[in-house]
């Protein structure tokens, strides 16, 4: 293996180039600026389009324009500035444009600060744009996954002609780990039947979300939802850790899931049958699998670096199968192992005298 020490941000940028991203539009914001910084050197040198836009609104709309011509497009930003992109994400969903949007989360609400946080789960999975649409959301928890899921983000965007959000966090963006820049494992998707590349010798095409004919608009949205249904059917992805016999299931996403795994190890050593369920796709959320696991469980503890956003999806999956508890902290220093243990002890002590 050919591993190198890579920052999460640089890993995302390298993977994007490696799988053929040929247009990047962005505007600097901590903690994701290294993505643009890296690409600003590499892309012009390789005759690829790099634009440092005048704002995030401009950047995402440039992305829409470029994607409509069939380019492989990425933009990246962070939390408060991804808020500015919500209108365009709604448009891109209706226009069926494959764009990859990287959100390296910082603290909110409002401007917040550059501390790491997982406060954009709702923004990413529910979306802040208007109308009926959904956005695929992928959640890496290591630098290696920043690479793997960037490849996947481009692939799914092209495959389903829909925007995909790669939801990382400030800790992952800034930290370096040993990772391998593997080959892109996904096939190229042919877009010659829809892209706008000049109508010479063929009938003209249009891409727009405006549709004054009620019936046509209804049909369009139903078609979008058939696509979402296929995505929900085919693309749920998750990691399970020691869930085989678990009576206690921890749910966590992104970097927080690593700390949650340490918590599992701590309680396994004390004889508690505990395991971790980590969704790698936040939309589509793996409801079915978590429901199955919760049928054998007594307690599900959701751990997040926010005030409980994935919690509602966990509850929807678990239903009344098991008790659902939450451990969280909104921003800043990541929940430390000892903080999690203190909080989890309070939840578990009634059932497990051994802890």
């Amino acid at each position: 293996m050919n591993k190198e020490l890579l920052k999460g941000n640089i890993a995302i940028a390298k993977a994007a180039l490696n799988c053929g991203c040929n247009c990047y539009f962005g505007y600097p914001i901590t903690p994701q600026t290294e993505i643009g910084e890296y690409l600003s050197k590499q892309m012009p040198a390789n005759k690829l389009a790099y634009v440092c836009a005048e704002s995030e609104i401009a950047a995402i709309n440039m992305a829409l324009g470029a994607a409509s011509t069939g380019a492989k497009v990425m933009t990246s930003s962070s939390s408060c500035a991804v808020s500015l992109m919500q209108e365009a994400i709604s448009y891109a969903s209706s226009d069926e444009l494959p764009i990859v949007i990287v959100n390296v989360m910082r603290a909110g609400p409002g401007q917040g600060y550059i501390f790491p946080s997982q406060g954009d789960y709702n923004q990413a999975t529910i979306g802040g744009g208007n109308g009926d649409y959904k956005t695929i959301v992928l959640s890496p928890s290591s630098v290696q996954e920043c690479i793997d899921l960037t490849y996947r983000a481009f692939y799914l965007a092209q495959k389903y002609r829909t925007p995909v959000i790669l939801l990382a966090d400030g800790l992952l963006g800034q930290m370096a780990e040993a990772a391998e820049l593997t080959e892109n494992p996904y096939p190229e998707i042919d877009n010659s039947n829809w892209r706008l590349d000049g109508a010479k010798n063929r009938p003209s095409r249009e891409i727009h979300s405006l549709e004054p004919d009620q019936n046509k608009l209804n049909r369009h949205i139903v078609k979008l939802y058939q696509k979402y249904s296929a995505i929900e059917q085919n693309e749920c992805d998750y990691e399970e850790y020691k869930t085989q016999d678990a009576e206690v299931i921890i749910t966590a996403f992104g970097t927080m899931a690593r700390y949650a795994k340490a918590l599992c190890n701590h309680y396994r050593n004390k004889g508690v049958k505990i395991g971790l369920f980590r969704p790698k796709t936040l939309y589509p959320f793996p409801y079915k699998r978590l429901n199955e696991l919760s049928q054998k469980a007594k307690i599900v503890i959701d751990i997040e670096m926010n005030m409980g956003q994935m919690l509602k999806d966990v509850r929807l999956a678990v239903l009344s199968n098991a008790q659902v508890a939450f451990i969280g902290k909104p921003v800043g220093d990541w929940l430390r192992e000892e903080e999690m243990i203190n909080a989890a002890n309070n939840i578990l002590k009634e059932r497990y005298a051994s802890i």
Partner: protein
Amino acid sequence: MIRNFIISGSGGQGVLSIGTILANIFMLSDKFVSFIPCYGAEMRGGAVNCEINASDEELLCIQNKEVDIVVALNQTSFDKFISKVKKNGTIIVNSSLAKINKTRDDIKYIFAPLTQEALKLGNIKTANSIALGILSKITDNFSIENVKKAYEKILKDKKDLIQKNIEAYFVGYNYIQER
């Protein structure tokens, strides 16, 4: 076994450079490793630190309440990070820029005049590598080959500095032995 380190100082002292080199040495030694930088808005003069974790197994907790070894390259970082040293852990202090003062009795201290030692080598900017040498001596039996590889990688755009820094690393490495 998990080992963790904080390297701290001010911008321009090469805190992140030796942090990256240390992380690379661990990577080349086939360990799992994480490196997190932390700095203010200033490029020079502001406070800088980084945390490095190394383990034989997958690293789960990347930020820790306390660490095994702290390197403090100036007074401010000595004052700030002494509380982050684990019980029985070690703090390596640049005594050229920080007063020798033992406020805790449950940790080990290594005071070394890194800046003066670096000046003796003819380059003040190698104080960080002397600190890394001391840290290496009390941490692990790194292979010399991996240390050289890490320096060559990180300083690939400043080739003329590689030899001087490796020399400084060994001044640090042999520092404790000599005393």
